[in-house]
């Protein structure tokens, strides 16, 4: 039944719907500059809807062939990596590693793995940009934070900027996850301006009622020319949903990590800067805490 609704939605050629959605499931790869919408037809707020008429779409058979080659290549790599070991690396390497660099910023390709967002999407006036730092060795996130709320009659608060790593995609746009179960701490080498940031870890749950769940902790930066090496144990991350800290706290499970993000929302108007050298993982053998937050029974019986 869900499939029939989806098909009806796709073929309903009204001026208000996206006409190309009807074609995407069948010939999406053939269209030039086509973004896969296999997961949803979500359009990011602030971006204009794409109402390109059918006769202006540029179908390219070469695009389809390239898509097939790329995805079968990825599939072959996945099959070979499956034999090698977890995440394509041997078991000895998996068991013996104590540190791992997950994201580093050395080229534009590394920057393209991140998405920058701000409250401009909801009509706010903050700005955020991401570029390569000096000598292409770091990433520089900079911009201006503005807590002025948009005048739409609904929004009461504003003022945030964020970056988030794009989700990993496998062959044929299947979801892939990081397995960080070998490590117990997040390691960041950053240089900030004294502002407090929030680090969010997204575990991409299977069902949509948990899609807003994030594991969050704070990163306090110092201003100044010296680099800061921050180690945050995963046991410190607390569960929040839609920005609200949950009463029932649970530890972060590290076998299925999807994305990491940084958010600035300290209600201080003005410019900001955060330079990131790399983001890595650490197996700190001195850290034995399993979970930092105890669960107390509410309304305990006497």
């Amino acid at each position, binding site marked *: 039944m869900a499939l029939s609704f989806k098909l009806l939605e796709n073929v309903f050629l009204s001026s208000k719907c996206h006409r190309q959605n009807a074609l995407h499931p069948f010939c999406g790869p053939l269209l030039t500059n086509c973004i896969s919408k296999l997961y949803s037809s979500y359009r990011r707020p602030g971006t204009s809807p794409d109402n390109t008429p059918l006769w202006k779409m540029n179908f390219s058979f070469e695009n389809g062939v390239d898509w097939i080659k790329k995805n079968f290549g990825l599939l072959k790599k996945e099959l070979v990596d*499956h034999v090698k070991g977890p995440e394509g690396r041997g*078991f000895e390497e*998996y068991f013996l590693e104590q540190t791992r660099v997950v994201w580093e910023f050395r080229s534009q390709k590394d920057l393209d793995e991140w998405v920058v967002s701000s409250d401009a999407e909801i009509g706010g006036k903050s700005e955020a940009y991401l570029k390569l730092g000096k000598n292409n060795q770091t990433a520089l996130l900079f911009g201006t934070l503005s807590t002025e709320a948009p005048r739409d009659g609904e929004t009461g608060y504003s003022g945030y900027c964020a970056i988030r790593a794009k989700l990993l995609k496998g062959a044929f746009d299947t979801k892939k996850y990081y397995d960080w*179960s070998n490590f117990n701490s997040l390691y960041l080498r950053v240089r900030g301006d004294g502002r407090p940031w929030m680090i969010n870890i997204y575990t991409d749950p299977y069902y949509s009622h948990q899609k807003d769940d994030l594991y969050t902790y704070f990163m306090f930066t110092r201003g100044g020319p010296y680099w800061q090496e921050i180690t945050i144990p995963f046991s410190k991350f607390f569960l929040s949903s839609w920005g609200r800290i949950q009463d029932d706290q649970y530890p972060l499970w590290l076998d299925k990590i999807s994305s990491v993000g940084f958010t600035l929302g300290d209600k201080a108007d003005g410019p900001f800067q955060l330079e990131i050298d790399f983001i890595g993982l650490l197996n700190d*053998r001195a850290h*034995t805490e399993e979970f930092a937050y105890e669960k107390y029974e509410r309304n305990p019986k006497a």
Partner: protein
Amino acid sequence: MNPHANMIIMSSLILGPMITITSNHWIMAWVGLEINMLAIIPLIAKQHHPRAIEASIKYFLTQAAASSLLLFSIINNVWNTGQFDITQSTNTMSSTMMTAALTMKLGLAPFHYWLPETLQGTTTMMTLILTTWQKLAPLTLLMMINQSLNTSLLVTLSLLSMMIGGWGGLNQTQLRKIMAFSSIAHLGWMTMILTLSTKLTLLTFYTYITLTTTMLLTIKLLETNKMSTAMTSWTKSPMLNAMMMLNLMSLAGLPPLTGFMPKWLILQELTKNHMTIIATTSAILSLLSLFFYIRIAYYSTITLPPNMTNYSQQWRHKNQQKPYLPLMIITSSMLTPIMPTFMMIM
């Protein structure tokens, strides 16, 4: 959990498969399956961790879909044959749909995707119940209707399960997921011989329950969920760690351990029925599972100091003695020499 709720849930969990096993009427069998499914859902989600909730929803959706398909096939069978007797399910299309529904409930390939995720999201004890007790009712129904099942379809599903069970478990590091793929592979062996000898299926099932129970109780006692923590578990109980290696070899089907017995008998039965190529293929596919069992045994038992591991020692909690575990370890290792007794019983 509230003791009253716990009592109702546990009694329903036991009652459901009992109803299914002892019924001749299809609707009663289906009711037993439903009671069983509904009883285990709160147990899977007992921790209330987001992953446990996700596991329980996945379990519920898959089992509900399988139940609805089973009910549809039952109604179809009644429409064609005019009766609800389980042993008289002779309609071909109904049998095929029943096969699909029951294999979905069991977690056989190609309907296996829910099993590793569900087992990973829940506790070790629930993993034990899901891999042993929950297989009882669907497998019993398959055995009851075995005469009307399509042998080719079952053999295909079995080979696919063995392949996927072996291939999927290859680079896993979480022990519960490894047990899930082990379960898929073993179910493949059980269904392979279903149409030829239900007694062998039953023997394989009992052996599988013994081995899996021993393994999961060992994992629970050692408080280890990952291969990395299994590497330091020898400090808690060196003897149990050594026995775990034997149990893993038994799961792999190496002689002269217990796990070899059902595999040997199945291969013998297949060869007697001129299915030599299938027997050879099954034996070769079991090598995939053997690889990851040996890997766990190597990293947990054979790798010892002075080869230092990368992992710090775990907290040592008060040891929860399980007095029946030694008996289970003996049963899971030493039954092959008394195989003639089983042959006589069968």
